[in-house]
């Protein structure tokens, strides 16, 4: 297993956000976490990257404990996190944002190569490379946030609500990108409110309800599950 969560618990004050969540992510797959607002999806990702400290359980990445590490240390292990709401650096140019994603890397030739490949993936970012990130549209900012994560050459990519607030045509583009990243050998953990999109993209899915995993299985199978259909697909 590339990533393993073992009964992790996260509390916000007295409120339990995650109560014993276990998950596993294998190499080369898209794993999705779906669920209602406040079910603990984002918190799960934040726990992995060290932004939300654990109150119990453990997290293993490549067999090594990573819970309790500072977020920058988790990043240095090869986990990139595209946070909810994109969180690009507003007063930095597109190119500076991307290069900041490569902060931990040495070797400028490799970095230049990856910068070119991000621009190939998102030509619109290249057109705007000297513009400040705050001037970009929501879709462009999402591309920038994904590109920034790619610049760290991650071994695992966490994505939090990449489709949020985007026009359908842009959502399709982002979905295609996620597929390409995964087929390029970087496994993705995808948190989505758009369950239809998530289940179509993913290989494996977890359903979170009130901070616990209520259901898990192959994405195709969950897509046909009656409970999932009624609760998340609006069928």
């Amino acid at each position, binding site marked *: 297993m590339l990533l393993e969560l073992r009964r992790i618990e996260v509390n916000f004050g007295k409120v339990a956000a995650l109560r014993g969540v276990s998950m596993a992510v294998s190499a080369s797959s898209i794993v999705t976490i779906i669920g209602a607002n406040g079910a603990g999806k984002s918190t799960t990702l934040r726990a992995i*990257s*060290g*932004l939300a400290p654990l109150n119990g359980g453990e997290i293993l990445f490549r067999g090594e404990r990573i819970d309790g590490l*500072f*977020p*920058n240390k988790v*990043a*240095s292990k090869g986990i*990139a*996190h595209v*946070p909810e709401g994109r*969180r*690009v*650096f*507003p*007063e*930095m140019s597109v190119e*500076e944002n991307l*290069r*900041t*994603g490569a*902060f*931990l890397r040495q070797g400028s030739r490799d970095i230049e190569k990856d910068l070119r490949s991000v621009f190939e993936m998102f030509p619109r970012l290249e057109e705007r490379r000297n513009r400040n990130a*705050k001037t970009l549209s929501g879709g462009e900012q999402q591309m920038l946030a994904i590109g*920034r994560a790619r610049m*760290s050459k991650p071994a695992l990519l966490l994505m939090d609500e990449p489709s949020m607030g985007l026009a359908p045509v842009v959502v399709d583009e982002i979905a295609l990108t996620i597929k390409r990243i995964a087929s390029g050998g970087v496994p993705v953990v995808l948190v989505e409110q758009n369950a239809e999109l998530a289940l179509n993209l993913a290989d494996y899915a977890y359903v979170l309800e009130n901070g616990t995993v209520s259901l898990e299985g192959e994405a195709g199978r969950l897509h046909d599950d009656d409970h999932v259909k009624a609760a998340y697909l609006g069928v």
Partner: protein
Amino acid sequence: MIELLAQTGLNSLYAAAYLSLVAVGLVLIFGVMGVINFAHGELFMLGAYVVVALYSGFGVPYILVAAIGLIFVGCIGILMEFTIFRPLRDSPLGGLVASIGFLLIAQALVSMGFGVRMEHVPPVTQEVIVFSEKVRLPLQRLFVILAAVMFLSLLWIFLRRTRFGWALRASAQDAEAAALQGISIRQTSLIAMFVGAGLAGIAGVLTAPLISVGPHMGHAVIVAAFIVIIVGGIGSLEGAIVASVAYAFIHTIVTTFWDGVIADITGLSLMLLVLIVRPTGLFGTTDRA
């Protein structure tokens, strides 16, 4: 009238020079660490006392004193990070209160070591550039102006062109997102404290021969520095540099034509105006403040 304007312009340039060095450091620390360093004026004061101790006291060459002042006060900044701000990272208000404590300690230690009377540092140079009968620029003031331009330019290049400069800007704009890129907030905080404190220190070193040096001299600059923080807003460290220079100019011009109290009132009014019209500050984009 032209001569008065020219002389005022020169005075403003000089005041803007050292004030922006102090304010920029405060803004840098606030931007990167989210904490207000109330003792920042004392760092300026400590820089001046490095001159009193080494230059007046032992006759160490001034240029060497400047280098020592920069590094010494920069290290005081690092000391503050380790003893105050890092342990209180999760509580910005705690950091502020502790920095007030540091302010009192610094003033007390200096008073014990040097006494509370005003020190007068012998001038480094007596030369004055005479443009005309009423327009003159003492060489020491020119020195302050040139040094400020140099240090602010270096800071600008550091922020714009270097990997750690980007890390500082990224932390100031979104600390959490910066951490996700592998940027260590501990590292950026150390850099911000060293650079911010060092700049305040060098401002103290530069102005010491021109003003009266006393344990409480930090008060005068800190109010101005705070106004600059609020007017400039956070988010853009470069914006803060521009705001520091602009404010220092306005303050000096008002001081010259009216007086210092009116200048402070003008500054505070500007601050209120900005808070009403643009609560995030002129250059601010984040709502962290």
